[in-house]
């Protein structure tokens, strides 16, 4: 439903904007796509890791079994000359760096930490051998709760630190004290959000081989950032230059942020491969994934909202305590979550004053990294719960309270209270789209008739967000990131036969970028998208790029592809014009043909001229038909997508069970390149968010033992749990990007915890119960409802 698509400049020959079927599907549906676990090299052996069974302890040097073969057991001592520990840095004052050994030495700091690696001819044999190695560990009291980590006298994870704090920061912006003094209403809430993880269906994995003859190390790796991993490997490994490292990210079975950081397993395999005469492979099993793939989003929050009875929101006071785990991952660091949450909290609202404090602590748990939305699901949950509860306290309809405080479309570009520069967006329209789709009036009518005897109560709730996407160097610099994701690359070559090969530095993990980028290139070149072949994920084949994270690829790689294609189109025109006796401006490119007033030439013919028939090529035109282009956005603060999610739920008062009845996403990601893929990204993201809202939770006991280590303990939603999701699209173009596109990969996952928690709170209003923690467990609701009674009048 693209209601305002008519406003856009639409040409009916454009391929951007069409639901083009995906180029990548055929190989996936045939079963011939090759994922990392499908890579087999001659004489390849298998690796299994010995991991720490305890959360915190003193580790004695590993004893190698007497009957183990010479190349079969690898310890920290044995790798010491080859690798450096991982030290993720952040250019921010007060940030504490962790030193993470590739294989543990001296101490272990979380269950699953690598202690040794073993090599055998099959995975089963490697696992057998790994089991015979029992590490000598003297257990230490562990910290598994973020609040306990702050206690005086809490065990300290890192000896060089004075406490367990990675970074604490805070700011007061605007006339906060005056706002507090003026406010007629103040609402305070404590919230908790459980740890979750991205959990792609494909686990991590790595195949590493070293060619002694050429000195080239090749890694097949399930990663989102092949070039950056290569750059980091060159820093982590001793004795190899970056130019001799090749990283190939084959087909990736989902990532969602979980395959962006550099992992110690990857460094270990690379280092071992350099010492071994055969290639090696490690494929993570699901149990290992729960122990050692990056985790996310664990928050303890305290929020206070200050408002006037008229519905004016004056100020927000926020405190975020984030559990950062044992080690900072490279390059997200442990503080990725807190910093983002504080910055994005104000969302689509006009807010005069804002005070925040963030603290990220170290605990004896796996480290944290980005997961689709980074910081935003938690910030939006906090903010939108407060919008809901403040509206209730004032006695206003929550969506009306939101609309009252939302930034108007005409105010853009708008600088938020936290300093983010929103480029464009129409938040109020999105909200009214969602309100209409949820039919709030009918929910209210039904709620008025509810009596104490009704055991199944319905409620409606919303979650609104703005989403910074495709931010450039300026923004990453501001955050203190050692890598600034400032550009993306594309190289386009038209071969003598006329077919088009595009290589780019990003890495698709299921987003369909081979299709959307082909659409963009096809429009700029003037040929059908089917003839554009996109390759990515190989550092030797593709130009240097930063990879696929932070909803950047469509805008950034799209910009690069468009830039390269436009330049190549210029060259095609020049060659055609010289051969057709007209000016380049007279040439029209369409369907792979350059047409001038006096004749036409196919791209294949032009390419032949450029490569093989130079007689027909004017000497002032460089031979070949290949262009490289690096796109750096003209405005580096990012482009902002936005959305409003609406949920309608029924809550069983006797069991605390929540049923999700209806779900709508009203969203705006600027120009839509492929509506089918956009819908898929939003629905898929929303399903993950629904999982977080209702089911997903990584549990640890007080000794730091993970309690959720299989897919039977950690519940991700299945087809029954995810309702049909209704979509409403708006297209407010970005003034800053190529053809007005905005990123959208993460949006779907941001708002479900907020919308669903608000709907449940709405349903239980007569009982005075509201949601304080995510996931919304039946047990928690049941406990909260137990000693509450039904209010005959609406409160």
């Amino acid at each position: 439903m693209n209601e305002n698509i008519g406003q856009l400049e639409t040409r009916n020959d454009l391929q951007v904007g069409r639901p083009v079927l995906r180029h990548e599907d055929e190989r996936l549906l045939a079963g011939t796509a090759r994922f990392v676990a499908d890579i087999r090299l001659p004489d390849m052996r298998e690796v299994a890791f010995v991991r720490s069974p305890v959360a915190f302890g003193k580790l004695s040097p590993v004893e190698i079994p007497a009957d183990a073969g010479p190349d079969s057991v690898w310890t920290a001592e044995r790798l010491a000359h080859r690798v450096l520990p991982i030290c993720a840095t952040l250019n921010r004052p007060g940030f504490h760096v962790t030193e993470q050994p590739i294989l543990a030495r001296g101490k272990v700091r979380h269950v699953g930490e690598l202690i040794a690696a073993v090599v055998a001819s099959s995975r089963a044999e490697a696992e057998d051998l790994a089991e015979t190695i029992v590490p000598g560990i003297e257990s230490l009291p562990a910290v598994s709760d973020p609040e306990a980590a702050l206690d005086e006298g809490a065990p300290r994870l890192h000896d060089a630190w004075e406490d367990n704090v990675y970074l604490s920061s805070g700011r007061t912006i605007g006339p906060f004290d005056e706002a507090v003094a003026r406010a007629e209403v103040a609402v305070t809430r404590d919230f908790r959000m459980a740890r979750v993880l991205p959990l792609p269906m494909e686990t991590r994995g790595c195949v590493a081989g070293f060619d002694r003859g050429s000195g080239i190390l090749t890694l097949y790796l399930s990663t989102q950032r092949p070039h950056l991993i290569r750059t980091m490997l060159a820093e982590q490994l001793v004795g190899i230059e970056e130019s001799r490292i090749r990283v190939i990210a084959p087909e990736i079975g989902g990532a969602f942020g979980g395959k962006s950081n550099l992992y110690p397993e990857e460094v270990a395999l690379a280092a071992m491969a350099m010492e071994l005469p055969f290639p090696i492979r490690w494929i993570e099993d699901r149990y290992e994934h729960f122990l050692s793939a990056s985790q996310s989003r664990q928050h303890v929050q305290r929020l206070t909202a200050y408002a006037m009875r008229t519905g004016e929101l004056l100020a927000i006071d926020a405190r975020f305590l984030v559990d950062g785990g044992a080690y900072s991952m490279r390059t997200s660091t442990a503080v990725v979550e807190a910093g983002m949450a504080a910055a994005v909290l104000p969302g689509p609202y006009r807010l005069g004053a804002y005070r925040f404090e963030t603290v990220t602590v170290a605990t004896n748990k796996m480290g944290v990294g980005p997961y689709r939305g980074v910081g935003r699901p938690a910030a939006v949950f906090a903010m939108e719960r407060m919008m809901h509860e403040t509206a209730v306290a004032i006695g206003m309809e929550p969506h009306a309270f939101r609309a009252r405080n939302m930034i108007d479309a005409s105010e853009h570009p708008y600088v938020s209270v936290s300093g983010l520069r929103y480029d464009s967006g129409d938040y109020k329209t999105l909200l009214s789209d969602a309100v209409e789709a949820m039919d709030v009036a009918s929910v209210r009518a039904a709620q008025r008739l509810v009596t104490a005897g009704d055991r199944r109560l319905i409620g409606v709730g919303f979650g609104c967000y703005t989403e910074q996407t495709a931010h450039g160097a300026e923004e990453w610099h501001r955050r203190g990131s050692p890598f600034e994701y400032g550009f993306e690359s594309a190289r386009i070559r038209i071969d003598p036969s006329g077919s088009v090969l595009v290589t780019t530095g990003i890495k698709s993990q299921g987003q369909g970028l081979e299709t959307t980028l082909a659409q963009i290139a096809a429009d700029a070149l003037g040929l059908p998208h089917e003839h554009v072949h996109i390759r990515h994920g190989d550092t030797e084949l593709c130009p240097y790029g930063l990879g696929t994270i932070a909803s950047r690829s469509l805008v950034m790689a799209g910009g690069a592809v468009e830039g390269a294609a436009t330049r190549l189109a210029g060259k095609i025109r020049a060659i055609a014009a010289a051969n057709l006796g007209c000016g380049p401006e007279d040439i029209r490119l369409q369907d792979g043909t350059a047409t001038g007033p006096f004749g036409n030439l196919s791209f294949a013919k032009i390419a032949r001229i450029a490569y093989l028939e130079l007689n027909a090529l004017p000497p002032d035109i460089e031979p070949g038909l290949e262009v490289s282009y690096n796109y750096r956005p003209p405005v580096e603060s990012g482009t902002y997508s936005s959305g409003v999610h609406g949920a309608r739920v029924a809550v069983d008062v006797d069991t605390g069970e929540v049923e999700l009845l209806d779900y709508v996403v009203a969203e705006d990601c600027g120009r839509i390149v492929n509506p089918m893929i956009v819908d898929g990204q939003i629905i898929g993201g929303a399903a993950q968010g629904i999982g977080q809202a209702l089911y997903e939770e990584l549990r640890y006991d007080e000794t730091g033992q993970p309690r959720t280590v299989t897919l039977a303990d950690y519940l991700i939603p299945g087809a029954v749990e995810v309702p049909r999701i209704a979509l409403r699209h708006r297209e407010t173009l970005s003034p800053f990007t190529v053809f007005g596109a905005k990123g959208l990969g993460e949006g779907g996952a941001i708002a479900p915890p907020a919308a669903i928690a608000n709907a449940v709170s709405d349903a239980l209003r007569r009982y005075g119960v509201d949601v304080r923690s995510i996931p919304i467990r039946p047990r928690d609701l049941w406990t909260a409802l137990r000693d509450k009674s039904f209010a005959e009048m609406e409160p």
Partner: protein
Amino acid sequence: MTHQEITLTVNGCRLSAEVERRLSLADLLREEFGLTGTHLGCEHGVCGACTVLVDGVPSRSCLMLACASEGRHVVTIEGMRGPVADALREAFRESHALQCGFCTPGMLATAIDLIARKRASSEDEIRRELAGNLCRCTGYQGLVDAILSVGKRTDL
């Protein structure tokens, strides 16, 4: 005896192998026969990515021992052919039923079975029947739509 000689039919070909008794069917298919279209998402029987058809019945190849496939007919994604499989592939593509494609082999196997058992006539029914196959990318909507569109066809 830790090894056993077995013979089975895979995608229409009779194959023999000397296998370790503890070897799973999935590892036999992937590592011995090179049929890597069958994917392993959990290796503990929950995700359904490894689902193949054994004598026409969807089976978790991560839980089934290779030895237990002696004399059976196994069909993996590489061998899913015929009008129903073709129709499903087309529908998967048109309904955007896959993103990363990792769950797809198991989804196809399950979907072929649903069509064969005539259990694809309504959205609710398909959702219930898909309960044993997890997908982290699509939110299932495209999958449900794809299977429903094939389930409604009367010409298959």
